[in-house]
C-alpha cells in the first residue's frame, strides 16, 4: 500500500462565474520513505495538488488516500488530527512573526495539546536537528531566509509527521541556501524515514534530491517515474522543456544548426570514458557539440550533451548506435539548442 495515493484527482475553481480547471484526472502513488518531486511551470496546478494531500483544498472529483484512509471519509475534527501527521513548509516560510523561534516550533504541539514542558524539550531537540541551537530566542525578523526555512522545517517536524510537504520551499532562497536546505531535507528523509513531497519549478531541485518525479503540465500529469530515467529520456514535451529548454541560454551559429540533433546523457560508467573522442576517431567525421553540461542527479554526476550530427544519415545512424552501445542515453532533440 502506498503511503499517499492520489486517485483521479480533479479540482475545479469557480472564480467570479468562470470555472478554472486547476487539475484534471491526476493519479499518483507515493511510497513510504520516498522523496517525490512534483514539478511544473508556474500555474501548472502543482501547488493545488500538494494542498489536496492534506485537504487544505478539497478535490472536486477523485480521492486522496493517506495510508489507505480516504480523507473524504474523515470528519473535520478527524481531519485536523490527521494533519498532524502531515507536516508542511512553504515558499514564504509562514512563521508567526510575533513569536520567537522556540515558540514557533512549539506551536503545532500547543495546538495538539502537548504539555508546555514536553513541547519545549521536543523543540530543543529539533533545533539541534536543523542546526539552529543558538537562535532559540530570536524572532523571525532577525533571521535570514535559510534560517527561517530551517525553523519552518523544525516546526513541521514537531508533531512527528510521517509525511512532509514542501511547497516551493527553496524558491525564495539563493542557490547556496537552497543546497543546504535540500541537504537537510535529504538528511531528515534518511534518518527519520519521513516521506517528502517536493513541489518546485526548478529541475535542479528535483535532480538533486528526488528519487521519483511527476511532471504536471496544464493541470494534467504529463509524465512520472524515476528521476534518473526521466532525466535520461524524457518523453513528454513538458519534461523535455523542463530538463533542457529553459536552462539553455546559448544560441549556436545558424551554420552549425544541422538537420538532426541529439541529446545524450552520460551515466556513471560512461562519464569516465572518452566516448566522444573515440567516436570521432572511429567514424572520422566531426560532430558539433552545441551544449554540454554536468548535473548532480540524486548524488550522481550526470553529463548531458547536445550534438549536431553530420548530414550523412547513414553515418548519423551508426553514431547513434555506437553511443547507445557505450551505455549512453540518446534521444532526438528538437529544441533550438
Amino acid at each position, binding site marked *: 500500500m502506498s503511503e499517499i495515493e492520489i486517485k483521479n484527482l480533479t479540482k475545479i475553481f469557480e472564480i467570479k462565474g468562470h470555472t478554472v480547471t486547476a487539475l484534471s484526472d491526476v493519479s499518483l502513488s507515493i511510497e513510504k520513505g520516498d522523496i517525490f518531486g512534483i514539478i511544473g511551470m508556474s500555474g501548472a496546478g502543482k501547488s493545488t495538488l500538494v494542498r489536496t494531500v*492534506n485537504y*487544505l483544498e478539497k478535490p472536486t472529483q477523485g480521492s486522496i488516500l493517506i495510508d489507505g484512509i480516504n480523507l473524504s471519509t474523515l470528519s473535520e*475534527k478527524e*481531519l*485536523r*488530527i*490527521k*494533519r*498532524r501527521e*502531515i*507536516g*508542511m513548509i*512553504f515558499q*514564504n516560510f*509562514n*512563521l*508567526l*512573526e*510575533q*513569536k*520567537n523561534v522556540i515558540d514557533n516550533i512549539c*506551536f*503545532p504541539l*500547543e*495546538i*495538539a495539546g502537548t504539555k508546555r514542558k514536553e513541547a519545549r524539550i521536543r523543540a530543543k531537540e529539533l533545533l539541534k536537528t536543523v542546526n539552529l541551537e543558538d537562535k532559540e530566542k530570536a*524572532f523571525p*525578523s*532577525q533571521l535570514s531566509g535559510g534560517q527561517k526555512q530551517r525553523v519552518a522545517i523544525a516546526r513541521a517536524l514537531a*508533531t512527528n509527521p510521517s509525511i512532509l*510537504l514542501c511547497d516551493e520551499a527553496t524558491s525564495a532562497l539563493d542557490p547556496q541556501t537552497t543546497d543546504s536546505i535540500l541537504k537537510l531535507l535529504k538528511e531528515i528523509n534518511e534518518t527519520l524515514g519521513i516521506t517528502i513531497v517536493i513541489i518546485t519549478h526548478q529541475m535542479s531541485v528535483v535532480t538533486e534530491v528526488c528519487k521519483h518525479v511527476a511532471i504536471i503540465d496544464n493541470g494534467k500529469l504529463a509524465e512520472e517515474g524515476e528521476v534518473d530515467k526521466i532525466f535520461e529520456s524524457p518523453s513528454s514535451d513538458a519534461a523535455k522543456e523542463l530538463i533542457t529548454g529553459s536552462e539553455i541560454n546559448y544560441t549556436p551559429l545558424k551554420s552549425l544548426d544541422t538537420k538532426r540533433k541529439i541529446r545524450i546523457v552520460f551515466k556513471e560508467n560512461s562519464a569516465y570514458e572518452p566516448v566522444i573522442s573515440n567516436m570521432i576517431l572511429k567514424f572520422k567525421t566531426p560532430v558539433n557539440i552545441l551544449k554540454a553540461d554536468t548535473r548532480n542527479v540524486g548524488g550522481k554526476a550526470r553529463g548531458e550533451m547536445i550534438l549536431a550530427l553530420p548530414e550523412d544519415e547513414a553515418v548519423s545512424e551508426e553514431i547513434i548506435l555506437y553511443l547507445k552501445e557505450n551505455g549512453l542515453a540518446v534521444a532526438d532533440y528538437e529544441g533550438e539548442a
Partner: protein
Amino acid sequence: MFDSKVIGMIIEGIRDTLYMTLGSTLVGYLLGLPLGILLYVTNSKGLKPNKIIYGIGDFICNIIRSIPFLILLILLIPFTRLIVGKSYGSTATIVPLVICAAPYIARVVESSLNEVDAGVIEAAKAMGASNLQIIFKVLLVEAKTSLFTGATITTGLLLGYSAMSGTVGGGGLGDIAVRYGYYRWQTDIMIVTVILLIVIFQIIQNLGTFMAKKIDHRKK
C-alpha cells in the same frame, strides 16, 4: 478666579473624563472585539464565510456609524435611562459612547485581522488548528500591534466624544468647558480645560504608540 473650588471642579472633571473615556473604551471592546472577529470570520474570504451573518453585522455597523454622535447621544436618551436609571452624568454618558464606539472598534479590529498574512493562517490550518485556535492563537497574536494601535486611536476618539457629551450634561472636562466657556463667558476656564484635553490626548496617543512598538517583534 482659580480658587480651590474651581481647581477641585477641574480635578473632578479630569477624573470624570478619564472614567468616561477608559470605561467606554473597555466596554466598547467587550462588544466591538467579538463583533470585529465575527465580521472577519464570516467575510467571504474568512475562516467560515457566511453571507447572512456578515451582511447583518456589516449593516448594523454602517447604520450606527453613519449617525452623528451628537444625534446618537439624544436618540439614546430613553435607552440610557433604561440601563443607568438617569440620562445625565458621566456613567450615563458611557452608554451612548459604547454604542458609538462598538461598531467603530469592530471595523478597526476587522481591518487589523485582515492584515494578518494568509500564509500564516494556512500554515496553522496545515498543522491541524481549529478555527477557534486560529482566532486566539494566531490572529489575535499576530495582529496584536495593529490591534493596540487601533485601541489607541479609539481611545483618542472617545476622549473627544466624551467632551462633546458635555453639551447635554455628560460631566467631565467637556461639560466644564461648555458650562463656563459657552454659557458664562469664562474663557480662561475653557482654555484650561481645552489644554488639559490636549495633554490627556497626547499622553494616551504617545503611551499607545510606545506600547505598540514595545510589543512588536516584526522589526528589530
